[in-house]
């Protein structure tokens, strides 16, 4: 199993907490696995709630018209990288 970086651990916890995923522990999320559909099985309402949680926690807006969404939502690793690259300098 590939290991999560410290920031990925934080994002994994945000995913599990904000989506109330009962059967999954943050450390169980494989960094490279798909989050949506066949992977963790998240759907459009999960995407919305995750986007709201990311906006609250990091001030990063995920826009529906961003052409990179497929890539951003592809995996924990990709999502974490996107947040890190775009988060408000604090």
């Amino acid at each position, binding site marked *: 199993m590939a290991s999560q970086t410290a920031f990925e651990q934080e994002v994994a916890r945000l995913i599990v907490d904000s989506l*109330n995923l009962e059967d999954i522990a943050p450390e169980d999320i494989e960094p490279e696995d798909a989050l949506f559909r066949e992977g963790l099985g998240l759907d*459009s309402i999960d995407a919305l709630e995750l986007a709201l949680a990311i906006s609250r926690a990091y001030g990063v807006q*995920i826009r529906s018209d961003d052409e990179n969404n497929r890539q951003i939502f592809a995996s924990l690793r990709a999502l974490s990288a996107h947040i890190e690259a775009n988060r408000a300098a604090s």
Partner: protein
Amino acid sequence: MSRAWFQQQERGSPLALRIILWVALNLGRRASRALLYPITAYFLLFAPRSRHHSRRYLRRVLGREPGLGDLARHLHCFAAVTLDRVFFLAGRDDRLDVRVHHREVFLRHVESGRGAILLGAHLGSFEALRALAVGKHDFPVRVLMYPNHNEGITRLLESLNPDVAAAVIPLGRTETLIQARECLDRGELVATLGDRVAESDKMVACRFLGDTALFPQGPLLLAAVLKVPVILCFGLYRGGNRYDIVFEPFAETIEAPRGQRDEALAQWVQRYADRLESRVREAPYNWFNFYDFWDEGARRGETDQ
């Protein structure tokens, strides 16, 4: 499965549709309405599946065995409303007598700037609302719907009015509801239909017309997550050239915290089903779900026919 509508093939060849469209646009509503009689007869004779589901539904709502006249009236109503979509979308609805009831409910939410969800059903004409609100009056209304269902007819009709087509938020993508949120954040109203379950929907079993049927949780879940109000909207066809568009306040806020979400939402979805039932009883021939809505086939071990 009551999701059967999803796989259902649209009836009527593209050529027949084009002919009807041509007659409607060139010869007008009266001439094209003459075509409704052969169309109804065609469905009555050659669409056993629609006829079968119409009969089962009418038996429930009328509380008696429906006669051939009831079936014909139901199919004729569907054909008439479908034809009128042409006139609504082409902006040629001046001959139609459309009365709006409780317009203030709608306007209050347009003006509030908070956004709202406009929830309808496959009852009568949602097109009446869509075309008048978006095409004619330019109200900020977006429509959340599946893009490919009934592809032929929808594409043909939407080509009549690009503004209306452009107001669609297509369901089925990961970012669909993020887009819906952006619209609501701008104070727009997002219209959708709450009576059909699609493949990926979470479902709620509700009492509806005396039996259990599945309804999607999605529209009210969206309202709960985004804390926006919900209003109901139905475009009821009364026969002749008469339509009544009715708005109803439904919920100012829906509380459904994660953890108790399913229980909380089940009550709201049941409330929607109750309101829908009351409108269905008021306009029984406006019900356009010609498939196994109550899952009777599955429960009896039949294959959906």
